[in-house]
């Protein structure tokens, strides 16, 4: 596709494109990765503290403790998003705060708060899953395909 686009451009435009590419600011990939590693690791560490708490006091197992942990983390995210702290963390950490489930929570909650001025039905209700919707769509659809294949293999393949 990129090549097709290039052919339509005049030589001067092509020159400009290469010039633009040369002068583009390089993203500090390594620095960003280190930041993402520590912030993401820290969020998972907090998650581990929470799940240990749930395992010891509420009789969850290692496998099921993920659920209440996720819910608690999203609750914390709500507070951080509401007070405007999460945006700052996200700017610093990039994927470190987007990839953990807190990023999912933040995208839902910030959309809900942002569109509140448009009313609760059309604003909050309609926009809540604007960003998180794609995650749910692809998660559910891929899970459906995977589970379908696995079930068919187990039932008729004798796995």
């Amino acid at each position, binding site marked *: 596709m990129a090549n097709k686009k290039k052919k339509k451009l005049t030589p001067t435009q092509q020159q400009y494109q290469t010039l633009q590419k040369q002068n583009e600011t390089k993203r500090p990939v390594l620095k960003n990765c280190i930041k993402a590693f520590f912030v993401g690791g820290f969020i998972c560490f907090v998650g581990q503290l929470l799940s240990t708490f749930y395992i010891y006091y509420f009789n969850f197992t290692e496998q099921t403790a993920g659920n209440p942990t996720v819910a608690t983390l999203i609750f914390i995210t709500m507070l951080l998003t509401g007070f405007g702290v999460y945006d700052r963390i996200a700017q610093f950490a990039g994927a470190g705060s987007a990839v953990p489930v807190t990023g999912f929570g933040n995208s839902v909650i910030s959309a809900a708060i942002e569109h509140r001025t448009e009313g609760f039905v059309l604003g909050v209700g309609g926009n809540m899953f604007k960003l998180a919707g794609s995650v749910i769509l692809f*998660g559910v659809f*891929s899970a459906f395909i995977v*589970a379908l294949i696995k079930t068919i293999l187990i039932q008729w393949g004798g796995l």
Partner: protein
Amino acid sequence: MIFFWAFVVGGLICVIGQIMFDVFKLTPGHTLSTLVVVGAVLDGLGLYEPLIDFAGAGVTVPITSFGNSLVHGAMEEAEKHGLIGVVTGMFEVTSAGISAAIIFGMIGAILFKAKG
């Protein structure tokens, strides 16, 4: 020890996300969708459970666990009810994340006002 591995493995998953942001120039939406699909496929291959035993919250907190638990719920129902279970059991395990997001999103919208 599990605290250490949760930190390292969770951090590494975030680094993978950051590389997808910076090197492959994907939007956050594309990155998260890809990671969810990866999680679902990993669970389909039976690789996610051992990871949870090994790293605990390091793999249950990143978004990949969303795909994992979707497949998990679907498979659990499928064992009881066959193919129909794949659809009916989909949200069995994941409900916590989604309902928490919806409930707290609504509460947040009631409590807080947008700034600027």
